[in-house]
């Protein structure tokens, strides 16, 4: 399929990108293009202007930042997966990045693109919600920071105005804390039918977040309550589907997802305990 006509502008700085976005009411940023371009080809997305930020080298980095790790929004999944800093200091992020799509996708798609797309079936948003990550957003009025729990507002609906740019993602260092990201999918490169991210918290029960169980990544609050109260993984995971609203699509029914998520949560909690 051929996309609807659009204008194309390549920019060299974030400020230029913000100005370009402000010029048009339905402009879209182009980073890796691995979510946007397929939607344009089936004409589910018809932006009149594409602002290409893929060459902004200064948004491609992974670096320590006090008690956190800062990831530039244009860092490709492959580079997130292979970052020694993340592998050592926040391994759930590098592991999950290596589970996204296939090698071709990971070499072109970016963490910022995946996050800003806010697809509830994506892996990284769920991991960021479980971590309590922070998003740095820049717009005409300056910089603001949004917690992952507030950033994902709904289906493909991030907390981003049309002229704002997601520039950085900050995750806490999690050295010594058990973690797991598991996804259940038909084939290795597919989106998760259901996914689970869990991370042990200092002095509290583990956090548990779910992929593709609602219109956004959601916390499994029932499970978290049980774990905080001392329940074991098998007992706690019984409440995994509580409060969720999973989709029914060509690959799985909502009913099946509600059954699978209990098994997946139990396995993830057991794996996290063993790490």
């Amino acid at each position, binding site marked *: 399929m051929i996309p609807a006509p659009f204008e194309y502008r390549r920019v060299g700085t974030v400020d230029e990108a913000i100005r370009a976005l402000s010029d048009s009411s339905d402009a879209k940023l182009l980073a890796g293009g691995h979510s946007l371009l397929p939607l344009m080809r089936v004409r589910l997305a018809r932006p009149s202007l594409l602002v290409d930020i893929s060459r902004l080298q200064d948004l491609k980095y992974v670096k320590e930042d006090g008690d956190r790790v800062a990831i530039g929004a244009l860092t490709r999944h492959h580079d997130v997966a292979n970052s020694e800093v993340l592998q050592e200091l926040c391994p759930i992020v590098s592991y999950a990045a290596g589970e996204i799509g296939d090698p071709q996708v990971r070499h072109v798609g970016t963490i910022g693109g995946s996050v800003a797309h806010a697809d509830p079936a994506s892996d990284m948003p769920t991991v960021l919600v479980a971590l309590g990550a922070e998003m740095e957003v820049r717009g005409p009025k300056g910089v603001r920071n949004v917690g992952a729990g507030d950033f994902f507002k709904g289906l493909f609906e991030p907390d981003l105005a049309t002229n704002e740019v997601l520039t950085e993602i900050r995750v806490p260092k999690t050295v010594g804390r058990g973690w797991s990201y598991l996804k259940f999918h038909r084939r290795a490169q597919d989106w998760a039918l259901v996914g689970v991210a869990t991370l042990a918290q200092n002095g509290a029960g583990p956090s548990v977040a779910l992929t593709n169980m609602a219109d956004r990544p959601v916390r499994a609050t029932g499970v978290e309550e049980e774990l905080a109260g001392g329940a074991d993984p098998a007992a706690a995971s019984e409440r995994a589907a509580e409060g969720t609203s999973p989709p029914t699509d060509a690959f799985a*029914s909502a009913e*099946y997802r509600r*059954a*699978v998520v209990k098994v997946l949560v139990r396995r993830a909690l057991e794996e996290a305990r063993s790490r």
Partner: protein
Amino acid sequence: MPAFELDRTETPSPTNPLGVKGIGEAGTIAAPPAVINAIVDAVSHLGVTEIGKPATPERVWKAIRDAKGGAA
């Protein structure tokens, strides 16, 4: 090339009601039922007698659940 005569012969298969036989890649025909039968066999102790194709995880799960009378 010598002259030859074309003719045909019909030998209905006795193994099915239509008398039909597989032709063309006939070797592949047995594989899908063999796989499905293997899956049914693996869960037959739970009371499962039939699983549709393709045997997706959800179909297998439902077959087991239905065989147990709805208790997954």
